[in-house]
């Protein structure tokens, strides 16, 4: 067990080293959620004059940025894995005397840690601009949900990387989380959405994760929103982890 933890930690450290060594590759993913938050809140600020928002538009969309950051981090992990596959590094990793589930855990855990970077950047800018602070409990909950969703997005990215084995599949990795995050109550409260989007957002588990992150920003943290969010995030992670584990098992077996 201790050996396995060391391998996970080494893989996480390698992923984080990449951010320090090639910052140009990481900066767009770190900045993008903040740019989106600033852009959306400047353009659609007047939308919050409609009844039902219970907050200004900037506060309302900050949690969307958190989840976008999680999605970008997961996709980046998938793209990095595809690059490792293309360059042969992943094949060498598979020769290591470590269970594949441990290798997968290391790759996915690095995405969870990485997701905290855009979230921290976004939160800092948001608080400077006067967004309501969610408090310690709200922040810890948001961090946990963001990390879980990033792990789920990374599982999706890993599945795609193992299937196509090329960085050219990057748009497929990105579009999954993009759709999952935006087809929710991202821009407006549920009652203001058009009928079809209400139906889609009801069926989309990421809606519950988003509401879980958002609750501290627009009001107070409640148990109902919290357990819905935790259940949804865990469910999404379990679902995509199944595909990632299957992909890892099949790699090299064919």
């Amino acid at each position, binding site marked *: 067990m201790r050996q396995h933890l060391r391998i996970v930690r080494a893989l996480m450290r390698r992923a984080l080293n990449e951010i320090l060594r090639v910052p*140009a590759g990481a900066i*767009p993913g770190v*900045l*993008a959620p903040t*740019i*989106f938050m*600033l*852009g*959306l*809140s*400047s*353009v*659609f*600020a*007047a*939308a919050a*004059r*409609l009844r039902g928002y219970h907050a200004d538009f900037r506060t309302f969309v900050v949690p969307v940025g958190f989840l976008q950051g999680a999605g970008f981090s997961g996709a980046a992990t998938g793209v990095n894995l595809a690059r490792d596959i293309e360059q042969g590094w992943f094949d060498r990793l598979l020769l290591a005397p470590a269970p594949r589930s441990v290798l997968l855990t290391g790759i996915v855990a690095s995405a969870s840690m990485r997701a905290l970077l855009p979230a921290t950047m976004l939160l800092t800018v948001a608080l400077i601009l006067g967004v309501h602070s969610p408090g310690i409990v709200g922040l810890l909950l948001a961090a946990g949900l963001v990390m879980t969703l990033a792990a789920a997005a990374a599982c999706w990215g890993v599945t795609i990387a193992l299937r196509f084995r090329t960085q*050219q*599949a990057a*748009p497929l990795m990105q*579009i999954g989380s*993009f*759709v999952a995050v*935006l*087809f929710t*109550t*991202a*821009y*407006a409260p549920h009652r*203001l*959405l*058009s009928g*079809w*989007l209400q139906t*889609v957002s009801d069926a989309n588990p990421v809606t519950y994760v988003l509401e879980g992150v958002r609750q501290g920003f627009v009001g107070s943290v409640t148990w109902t929103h919290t357990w819905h969010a935790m259940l949804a995030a865990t469910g999404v992670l379990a679902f995509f982890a199944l595909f990632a584990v299957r992909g890892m098992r099949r790699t090299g077996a064919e």
Partner: protein
Amino acid sequence: MTRAVFALARRALRNTFRRPQFLTPLVAFPSLFLAVNVGGLHRTTSLPGFPVVHGFLDFQLAAAMTQSLLLGGVSSGIATALEIEGGFFDRLVASPIPRVAIVLGRLAATATLACLQVLWFLAIGLIFGAHIAAGLPGALLVVLIGAVAGTGFGAIGVMLALRARNASTVQGIFPLVFVVLFVSSAFFPRDLLASPVDAIARYNPLTYIADGMRDPIISSISATPVLEGLAAAAAVALVASTLSVVALRTRLREA
């Protein structure tokens, strides 16, 4: 010259359609944004200061077109950079054709693609219940402004590719597409934008391009926004094309 431009444009278009991974994002991302914006913010048409429109979809179509055309510009730049990285560009330079045809061929392909992108959004708009208030002449005007603007954005991409010479640098301007879009009135009426974006939008050519394409969709053709849109698109195309030809000459001089 014309034959070379035509041949290079045809080659560029054929390559684009052969690689759907580059073509799909040009329409997929803006279409998804369009769906989310309309589904989430359709009630904003009732806000005081919002122009009279048949629906929010009608208003948002021009935003999706502008976004798609900007992505087309990035894609055009990446394609040029890949030709430089792969050595095809050097073979073109060595061939007996006017060198300016290399840039013009790429831009002709981008203009054709821009027409198709605008037609795509008009089609999905009509399918999902949008109205083009100015009818067929209005639709043709939208395509015209889109084609000119798309050529301009493509020229910016080509210029960046000629200067940077690698695809990853050109790819790096992708987030900038959203920044320049957010500081325009492409997504929301100028009067309802928050400060300081409302002030910046006044000087952003994208504001006039988007408003110019929007006008024939949401009302009968009004001379001022359409002419301003055409003028802004033509100015971007002229300046960017000139700069890309200058970048080509500089590159050839340095080679």
